[in-house]
């Protein structure tokens, strides 16, 4: 058991270190590019159904239509945020707890643009 724990300890730091090094070496998506699309809250409001669901979160705009069936909580919980500014929903999950960093990172795959400042 002790040997297994020691091996797990070494493997942990090897993998975490590799991930850290790779994240420094591989360029990320970076800040919003100059030519990125902007949307108003009115644009977003038109996509307010579970099969066509856009949300604005922290100044970014997301199309979560493909993600709705994958979300761990039932779609009805998210559906109320479709077509709306949903930063609060993302940060509180309805009972005060923020989403995990992994969840925040995953939203990137569904980002379609930025919210136009009004």
């Amino acid at each position, binding site marked *: 058991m*002790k040997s297994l724990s020691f091996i797990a300890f070494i493997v942990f730091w090897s993998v975490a270190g590799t991930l850290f090094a*790779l994240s420094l070496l591989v360029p990320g998506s970076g800040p919003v590019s100059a030519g990125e699309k902007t949307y108003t809250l009115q644009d977003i409001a038109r996509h307010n159904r579970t099969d066509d669901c856009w949300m604005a979160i922290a100044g970014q705009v997301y199309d979560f239509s493909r993600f709705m069936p994958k979300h761990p909580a039932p779609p009805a919980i998210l559906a109320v945020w479709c077509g709306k500014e949903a930063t609060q929903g993302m940060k509180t999950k309805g009972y005060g707890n923020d989403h995990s960093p*992994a969840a925040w990172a995953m939203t990137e795959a569904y980002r379609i643009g930025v919210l136009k400042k009004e």
Partner: protein
Amino acid sequence: MTAKPYLTRLAIWLLVSLPALTAFVFVTPADFSSAGAVLNLMGRLSGGLGLAGLLVAAVLSCRIPGFDQSFGGLTKLWQLHHKLGLSAFILLLAHPLLLAFAAAEVSLAAAADSLFSMQPTVLYGWLALLALMAFIAPTFHVFGEPDYQRWKRLHRLAAVVLMFGLLHSLMLGRTLPASWNKLLWGGLGLLALSAMAYRWLFSRYYGRYRYRICNVAAVSDNVVELSLQPLQVPLRYRPGQFIYLTPFASELLAGAGEEHPFTLSSAPSEPVLRLAIKTLGDATKALQSITPGSDVTVEGPYGCFFRQTELKTKGLWIAGGIGIVPFLSYLRHCASQHQAADVQLIYCVQDEQHLLFAPELQQLTAVIEGYHFTPHFFSRHGALDLDFITQHCSDLRARQVWICGPPPLILLSRGIVLGAGVTSGDIVTEEFTLL
């Protein structure tokens, strides 16, 4: 009647699995929608299992006298604590990696973000994990055997681990509905907190018996027998049990105010407590020359070497070195109660010089009906083997076997008697080693 140890162990593992088992009720098809989702679920479950393992390991370390009986004694309870702690450690190392692998389905940046986020909740998780590494690392013996007292002090980091681990789980947990999350982690957290409060506060100030050293008798050049006179209510115990002793004499060159475990050598009916102490480190060396008159505290009793004060079966006792002490306590008890004991004691030591309490062990053969004493000298007889045992104990298979001594002797003797057909349920062992 105490619960069977395997049932208690099963109950403990079930308690550890409770958050993970409850989580399965709330798993949705979305948790299996992709490889990333499955890895994410595994990551969350390993975190939950790991934290529950640590919390229950903390509960087991409370050392409330009597609590160890249903586990088969304190050393067996420590072994379970050790297994739980290391299993939790492995699971908690896997937890952030699995979550990072899950996020890698989105992008490498997402994977790194999930691991190295500056979000406070994630930092709490890191703090808990690093503190856990700091107190588990000495167990790996990379820099040799850890110092017992330093190792014990490092274990106090467990409070940091549990506090930040619980915060991390309460703020980030999403596998269970919020109310279940609070109920389960709050309940387990409260149990662990109560155990730590008992260990660090109650036991220190209220849970110990006060005694005064009234006699110090040299048994050999590195073993001494202390006699302790009760200052208040005396300790009640069974033969073969052990206690934690804290001496306070200012003359001690080492170990004043530190607690160490010692097996009681006296019979429970004696007016004083007696314990035999062998030099194993600085603190036990200092105790060899302590003068009578100073105060000590005693916490216990612990251990379950002899379940009853009157043996129901014929016994074979194998002792090694200072491991003779629980047997001596039992024999003194038999003599004081005029009780017979059908036992064959084989006492293994290097040579005649190393026999402890030899005259008394020999004398008691005339007092206790059925008791036989055979010394085994490694220098003369070689390693203990089946021939030697059967020569002195021809009906070995009809006997229950008790073994106490250094781990190599326990391993060897256990192998011999198992090979001769004694079932493992008929073998009782007690080893005193730092895990």
